[in-house]
């Protein structure tokens, strides 16, 4: 049965690695729902967060292939339940629409969103949350015509009390030492 999985990859920050990672999905005709890459807490190590809707068997196998990539340090997967995750969305509405009625203000307040910038022409609203939540806000604001809308890829963090990466790197260094 297909469900949403979050794949997390820690890798060296090397040119072309994004391509080397995504071809593993392309080759198996697996669609990436969202992808976020940024530097992790440790300098020089990138963290990929990839969301896809797939069967666990296929996810498990692709994660093993990802771990095989020379520049990948570690790859693992979780279900949504096992992680805390967020996405961020930005909405641009006409500033005039805010003047005409107090509805937008109420929507923003209720959604726990915030206003980032107000100009004469437009107002930019920001909301973080799960996709359903940012989507719901979009639909509500769209009654007043959303001029522009953008949603980020997902970022996710495990429910473990600590970041495993530094521990993992220590283990890896010890392992490599022992190889000599």
């Amino acid at each position: 049965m297909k469900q949403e999985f979050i794949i997390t990859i820690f890798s060296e920050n090397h040119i072309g690695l994004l391509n080397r990672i995504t071809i593993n999905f392309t080759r198996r005709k697996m669609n990436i729902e969202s992808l976020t890459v940024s530097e992790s807490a440790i300098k020089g190590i990138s963290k990929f967060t990839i969301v896809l809707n797939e069967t666990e068997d296929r996810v498990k196998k692709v994660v093993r292939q990802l771990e095989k990539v020379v520049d990948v340090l570690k790859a693992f997967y979780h279900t949504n339940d096992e992680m805390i995750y967020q996405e961020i969305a930005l909405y641009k509405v006409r500033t005039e629409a805010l003047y005409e009625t107090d509805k937008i203000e109420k929507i923003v307040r209720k959604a726990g969103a915030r206003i980032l910038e107000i100009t004469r022409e437009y107002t930019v609203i920001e909301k973080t949350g799960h996709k359903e939540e940012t989507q719901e806000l979009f639909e509500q604001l769209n009654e007043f015509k959303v001029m522009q809308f953008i949603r980020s890829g997902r970022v996710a963090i495990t429910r473990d009390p600590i970041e495993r990466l530094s521990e993992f790197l220590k283990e890896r260094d010890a392992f490599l030492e022992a190889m000599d």
Partner: protein
Amino acid sequence: MATKKITGSEAVILSLLEEGVDTIFGYPGGAIMPVYDALYDFDQKVTHILTRHEQGAIHAAEGYAKVTGKAGVCFATSGPGATNLITGIADAMIDSIPLVCITGQVASPLLGTDAFQESDVVGISMPVTKWNYQITCAEEIPEAIAKAFYIAQSGRPGPVLLDIAKDAQFQEIDFNYKKCKKIRSYIPEHPVDPFKVKAAAELIDRAKKPLLLFGQGVIIANAEEELKAFVEKTGIPAAWTLLGLSALPTDHPLNIGMLGMHGNYGPNIKTNEADLIIAVGMRFDDRVTGKVSSYANGAKIIHLEVDPAEIDKIIKTDVAVLGDAKKSLKMLTDNVNENSHESWLQEFHDCDAIENDKVINKDIYPSQEGLTMGEAVRIASEKTRHNAILVTDVGQHQMVASRYFKFTQSKSNVTSGGLGTMGYAIPAALGAQLGAKNRTVVTFVGDGGFQMTLQELGTIVQNKLPVKIILLNNNFLGMVRQWQQLFFDKRYSFTELQNPDFIAISKGFGMDGHKVTKRDELEDGIQKMIEHDGPYILEVVVQKEDNVFPMVPTGASVSDIILEA
């Protein structure tokens, strides 16, 4: 260590020498000319083989790597030079062959400008390399080459590619070489877990009908002796995959033959009767398993494997022993009880009797008119005292040669397994001969595959390589024709060839040869070929519509193997 200023190109050559490279296969061109210029001064230290096409260079490098176990090295220029390597790189990737490919690239300021002979080689080769990297400054060269050799040759080997921009080849650097011994993000092999070994040993000691399947992993790990020791202690019958061939001598009493689609009857049928499968250094390819859902359902599965991604990929294992096969087999042998499985082994011999009667005798000792591929293979094997290196192309002749050629030593089978690359044999044979100068290299090729890379006859002749080629000519793309006969109502869609005079062509290249069409000429023809001083081609005209049996039809279970049409 003292350093001196040298160019990036010289650094390439010196780095290769540091890695012990003695042979390079390649083809020059604009973007790699500085490297070729540097090479000019090193002709005493390294042999460069100029092939006639980059595909020839890469398959030659594969053949060299297969018989030596060392990385094959290949040079090509940018653009078409590099793209011509791709088929061979893909072949090496799927067959785990260590290669280091070095391609020239346009000068770095021109990258991405559609410059002359520019192509995105790093992008194109990414899905078919274990690792690749573009070098745009000379300083990176020694470290990148050191990394390339380490990655290509360690763990599960594979091809790597370095794309070197032309300006980096000209830049001057202080040369200082350090071999790469580890990479933080890369674990080539995991230490063998003794608990897993114990768990595997318990299953092995309890099994009544155990069957061992070995693949190329045994050869890559140099674990032939460990494999032999294990089967001899346990008495377990052992069958091989196409690429595992030659790891265990053919006449070893526990070698029960080949697995898979055109493998032997016993190993296929008995896979589904076994209560334990011990898979060593193999990956359960679909040509081995047939229909996966009805594969070895009565058996527990033990998998000894260096690549964690192979565990449970196709067949769910009960005990997976990660690590180098040489170490895991040794530990396993120490942990199992001495045993024998005489009556179980006898069942394989009973199957052999059936297969001999229905298939093999007719193939290798035919009485009907018209030559068979099987008899040519049998005689060639006998005439070389089962001691030659066998190189095959892809198709019917490949299956027949793998079935009937016999082996007494390992690293003696050179073939394109996973990718099934027609045109592989002729260039691979020249590479194999360079890697094993004192051995006889017997090459079987079909009339189809021969015409894909026959230009490499020129390379063979120019370098005086005594390669022996047996061209099995049935005037058809035989394996496709066989499938058309069996599964497409004999609709022979574009499989019949109008062939040239192969011997005249070969002689045009300066290679001696002879054509045989009759049985009473065959043995003599092969004898003359083997005795000939230098390269030689023997064309054997075989029956046009012979089929390879046994056969596990696509989508069928291994136990549904058929012995005749």
